[in-house]
C-alpha cells in the first residue's frame, strides 16, 4: 500500500520567514532613505582637514551633519552663525556654520540635528547653502 505523503511544514520555516521579511523591510527602508536623501551625492566635509587648513577647501561644497550646539551671533543681513557639533566622537568637533539670511525661515534650535550643505567661502567660513532636518 502506498505511503501517503506528509503535508506538515518544517518548523524552521517559522523562524526563517520572519527574518527574511524583516530583512526585506530593512533593505527597503535603507534604500528608500538613501534614495530620498538629496545630499547623498555631496561629499562629507573632512573636519580634520578643515581644522588644519580651511582655505585649502575654499570653493568646495560639502555635506555636514550635526547638531546645533550654540548660536554665536545674528545679523539681519548676513544671517545667523551657529556652532554645530559634528562627528561621531563624544564630544565631537564644533564647526561654525553661517546660515545666511535666506534661510531665516528655518528654525534652528540648540540640540536639533541637521544635515547641512555647506560651501567653504572666503576665510574658510562654512556658509550653509541648504539644510535639512535629520
Amino acid at each position, binding site marked *: 500500500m502506498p505511503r501517503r505523503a506528509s503535508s506538515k511544514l518544517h518548523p524552521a520555516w517559522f523562524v526563517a520567514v520572519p527574518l527574511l521579511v524583516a530583512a526585506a523591510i530593512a533593505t527597503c527602508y535603507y534604500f528608500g532613505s538613501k534614495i530620498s536623501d538629496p545630499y547623498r551625492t555631496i561629499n562629507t566635509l573632512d573636519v580634520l582637514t*578643515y581644522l588644519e587648513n580651511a582655505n585649502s577647501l575654499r570653493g568646495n561644497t560639502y555635506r555636514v551633519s550635526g547638531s546645533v550646539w550654540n548660536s554665536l551671533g545674528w*545679523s*539681519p543681513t548676513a544671517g545667523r*552663525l551657529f556652532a554645530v557639533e559634528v562627528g561621531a566622537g563624544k564630544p565631537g568637533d564644533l564647526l561654525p556654520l553661517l546660515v545666511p539670511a535666506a534661510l531665516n525661515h528655518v528654525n534652528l534650535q540648540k540640540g536639533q540635528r541637521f544635515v547641512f550643505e555647506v560651501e567653504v567661502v572666503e*576665510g*574658510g567660513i562654512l556658509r550653509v547653502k541648504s539644510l535639512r532636518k535629520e
Partner: protein
Amino acid sequence: MKRLLCCLLVLNVTALFAQKPDEPAPGTTIIQTPRKAPNTEPSVPLGEEVPVYDPGSEIVSWGGKHWNISNQRIFQARFEKYLNAPEQTDADNAEYQKIIHDILELLSPQNATNTKLYQAYVLLFRAAVHDADGGVCNAVANAVATAWQAQMNQNQLVFTVEELKKAMRTELSKAIMFAGAQEQASSSSSSSGKKGSAKPPPVVGPLEMRQGIYLKEAAAFEAQIAVLTGKREVSALQARVQFQALMLQLFLQRRFQHVVISCHMYRQLFNEGDSSIKVEGQTKEFFTKDLGMPPTVSTLLSLATEAMRDIREGVQAYLFLSERNEMDSATKRLSESFLIGEYMPEIRALSREKKRLALTYSQKANRLVSALSVKDYGQAEQLLKDMEIMAKDFDATKPRTAVETAKTVSAMHLAKARNAAIAGNSQTVEDALKQAAAVWPRNPALLEMSVAIFGQSDLQQKAIADFDQLLSQGNLRQIFNDKLRFIAAMATIPERQDKLKKVLEDMQTIEAATARAQEFARRGDLAGAWEAVERAAQQFPDDVKLNQLRGSYSSEAAGFVESLRTAQRLETQGQTGSGLAWYLKAQRHYPLSDYAKEGIDRLAKKILPSS
C-alpha cells in the same frame, strides 16, 4: 706771702736759666726784642742777672729774651725726670751732706773765728769731691782764696804807702831846711847892700835850687801814694764784688746750702764796711721792689734760709697729702718744692716709690691738658674720671665744663646736619659737619654720622644705577624685590619716583595675576591658571616668574592651550572659519576662558559685521 710767691716764680724760671738760654726747648715761645743801644751810664758790676717775671702777660724776660711761662713743657720734662730718678740716699750722698753740715756748723755766727773759717775752707775741698756737689764748693773755696789774696795785696800796698809817706816827709823836711837857709842868706845880704848904692840883679842861688829839688821829690812821692791808695781801694772792691757775684750766682742756681756757706764766709772775710751787694738795674729792682728789701748779704742769706725751710715743708706736705689721696695738692706742693730746691737733700732723698704717685698723677694731668688743647674730649673725659678717682681733691669743674660744652655744641651741629641730610640739603650738611668737626674733631658720633650720610649717598647712587640698569633690562621683579631700597633712594628724585611707581604698579599686576593663577591651580583649574598668567605674561613678557608659571601650566593644560594657540595662529593667518572652530574647541575645554570668548566674539563679529 706774695713776695715769696713772686720769688718762687722767679726761682722757677731760674731753673730754666741754669741751662743754656739761647737754645730753648721746642714749643717754647721766644720773643726777640730789639737790641738796646749801648748804655752810656756808668757800668755796674751786677745788674741784669735776675730774670723778671710779668704776671700780667706771663712773660719772663732775661738776658734780652722773653719766655712764655704758660708753656710748661720744659718744666714738665724736668719734673718727670726727677720723679723717675731713684732716691739719692747712698753713703756718698750721706757723707757729702755730713760735710756740708759740718761746714755750716763751723761757720755759724756764734763760732766765728779765723781758725774755724780756715777749717771750713779745708772742708770745702772735701765736699767738692762728691758728685752731688757738682764742684760748687770748689768755686766757693776759690773765691775765699781770691779774697785772702786780695787782702794780702792790700796789706802790702798799705806798707808801701807808709814807706812812701816817710820818704815824702823827709824830702819836705829838707826843702824846709833849705828854705830857712835861703831866708837867712837873703837877710844878711840886704843889710850889707844898704851900705852901697847899687842894687845887684836877681839870681837863683844854690840854696833855692836845692829847695826846689826836694819839693819836686816830695810831690812825686805824694803822687805815688795817691796811686797806690786808689789801687788798694779798687782791689778791695774787686774782691768784694767777685764774692758777691758768686753768692748771687749760687742763689740763682738754687744752691741754697752754698749760699748760706758763702754768706757766712763773706761776713768773716769782709767784716769791715757795709755788706750791701753792688747791683743796679733789674736786679736791684728785684730786691728793692719785688722783695722790698735792700740787696744785702743778709737779704740773700735770709732768702736762702727761707727757701730751704719752704722746701722742707713742701716735701712734708707732699707726703702728708699723698697719704690722704689728695694727689692734686700733693703734686703741686712737690712740683713747687722741686722747682725751688732741686738740689736740696730733702728733694733728692725722696724715695722713688713715693714719687711715682705724683708721676702718675702728673702724667695724667699733662695728658688732660694735651687732650683739651687738641679738643680730644673723649680722652679728656676718661682722664677726668681717672683723675677724680686718683685724687679726691682734683677740681674737675673747669675741664668738665669745657668737655660738656664742646659735646653739646657738637651734638647741636650734628643734629643740624642730620636734619639737613633728611631734607636733602647737602650744603647745609657739609657746613654743619665742618662746624661739628671744628668743635670736637674726634667725636665718635661725627664719624658715625659721616659714614651714614656719605655712605647713604653712595648707596643712593648705587641704587639709582641699579634701578636704571634693571629698568633697561625689564627686570621689574628685581626692582620689586628691592623696593624698600629703591623707595628710599628715589625719595629725593621725583623723575625716578614716577618710574619706580609705574614699576611697582606693574609688579602689583603681575603679582595679582600670579596669585590668581596659583589659586586657580590650587582648585584644579589649570586652564584658568594658565590663562591668568598668560594675560600678564603678554603684558610683561620678561618676568621670569610669570614665564615659569606659564610654562608649567601650559603643559598641565595642554589641550586647551593648544586649541587656543591654534585658533590664534589661524586667526592671524586669516582663516576665520577654522580659527573660530578652534576657539570653540578651546571654549569647550574651558568654558570660562576669556581668550576663547574674546576670540569667538571677535571672529563672529568679523563673520557677521553688522551684528
